[in-house]
């Protein structure tokens, strides 16, 4: 079993903290929540301290924040139906662009690896893809593939492929059709029996982990056309199959999951206040993988854990956010 050590509790938000996001360098952390503020924390010797507080960008809850891959921009998704883009041209972060179009609450925002595409999703059931050129943002697609509230959007780690998770219990995969330049749903991942709250690709982008209100985590494997397993790919598009279900580990809704690109460890955030870490067996077959629970941190927070994310640069460091109003920084060791 591994050990999760609490390094620090970051206090400052008033009320629920919905989300945290690491800067690509791993040196900064952005957080947001019900107090309509974004807080940016920085590493000062051994301690995390508040660097700046961004207010007046949104009139309602900020549900999610996301750093661009270059680290120069923050996108924030709000219940006020807008997405704000913040940059640091001067000393301070400033909101210079607001993306409007969704009919109601924006639930999630994500940058593609190139930084040239931005995806947003909303309770209005749609997923929007935005193209960015020289800080101009243009809507490239409005995708109405889900039948309910869309909870999360995440880009593939290397390609312009987008995944979304929804209240309609499914995950969908989208990509641009090169001929028509339309964004199309190329795959629907069905297996969860309730809301899919979040998802995360592994480092290769060939696998996904999803988490749900049905209290399970699921691992999905992509099978390309012509795969040696003989898995049929009807539309000449890759097919995603659920190859593993981790059930019986979580006692309430799982709100977030993150697959570490450095170590391959999976961390989950649960409504039972517990942070859990899973590791794939060393002799695991990728078509039928097995994962073990290697750490379970009881009372990680005093209320629901809403978000967990591995630091992209510093191995084993996790940030978590909770309804209890705190953000916690953890160090995981085998």
């Amino acid at each position, binding site marked *: 079993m591994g050990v999760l050590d609490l390094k620090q509790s970051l206090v400052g938000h*008033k009320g*629920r903290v919905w989300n945290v996001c690491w800067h690509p360098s791993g040196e900064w952390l952005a957080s947001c929540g*019900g107090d309509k503020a974004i807080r940016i924390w920085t590493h000062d010797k051994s301690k995390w301290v508040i660097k700046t507080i961004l207010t007046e960008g949104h009139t*309602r*809850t900020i*549900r999610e924040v996301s750093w661009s891959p270059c680290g120069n921009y923050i996108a924030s998704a709000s*219940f006020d139906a807008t997405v704000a883009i913040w940059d640091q041209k001067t000393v301070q972060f400033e909101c210079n662009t607001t993306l409007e179009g969704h009919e*109601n*609450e924006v*639930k999630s925002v994500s940058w593609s690896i190139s930084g040239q595409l931005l995806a947003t999703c909303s*309770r209005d059931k749609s997923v929007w893809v935005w193209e960015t050129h020289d800080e101009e943002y243009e809507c490239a697609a409005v995708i109405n593939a889900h039948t309910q*509230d869309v*909870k999360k959007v995440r880009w593939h780690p290397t390609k312009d492929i987008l995944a979304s998770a929804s*209240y309609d219990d499914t995950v969908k995969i989208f990509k641009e059709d090169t001929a028509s330049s339309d964004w199309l749903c190329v795959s629907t991942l069905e297996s969860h029996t*309730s*809301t899919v709250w979040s998802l995360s690709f592994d480092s290769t982008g060939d696998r996904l982990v999803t988490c749900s*209100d049905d209290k399970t985590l699921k691992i999905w494997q992509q099978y390309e056309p012509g795969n040696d397993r003989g898995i049929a790919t009807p539309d000449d598009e890759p097919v995603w199959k659920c190859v593993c279900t981790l059930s019986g580990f979580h006692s*309430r*809704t799982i709100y977030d999951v993150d697959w570490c690109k450095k170590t391959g460890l999976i961390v989950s955030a649960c*409504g*039972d206040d517990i942070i859990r870490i899973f590791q794939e067996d060393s002799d695991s077959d990728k078509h039928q993988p097995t994962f073990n629970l290697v750490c379970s941190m009881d009372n990680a927070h*005093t*209320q*629901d854990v809403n978000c967990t994310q591995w630091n992209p640069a510093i191995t084993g460091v996790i940030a978590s956010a909770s*309804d*209890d109003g705190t953000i916690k920084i953890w160090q995981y060791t085998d």
Partner: protein
Amino acid sequence: MSKLLENPNPKIYPKLEEKLGTDEKSENVARNPDVYDARSIFELLRNITDPEHPLTLEQLNVVEQSLIEVNNENNEINVQFTPTIPHCSMATLIGLSIRTQLLRTIPAKFKVSVTITPGTHVAETAVNKQLADKERVAAALENKYLLTVIEQCLESTVAEDSDPEKDDDCQTCES
């Protein structure tokens, strides 16, 4: 809301005092304000006003003490409520009022679930899923119109609530 009442002539049930003859407070609650039981939760909910009628959820038998479960060890509270008619369009709103009242009065460590009594509503699964989705509940409570309606339903509970500690809790979660 439509002007026509969906259920113009609901059955009215006697209040708890009328059934028991006295207004005995639960002993647990008297000893320790952080320990709850079905009775003390019922006390918090019984005087919520129905969105349609000038009657309480207790009088309409929407909430009943026997359909409330409290597990103090696991910090779990489960409340089942029974819509007055199986196609009641107010079911989500009533559930939301119950949820809001508990959010404001019960310590945050408790995991509260509010569901429809099985078999008593045509859209039971959909309403339950919505009430269990804390993100949608949070968004709903930021909706000014909806919040006004909920406040009206809860007004009578605030007036009758004489426990000062609970008033404190209420302020904490609103500030």
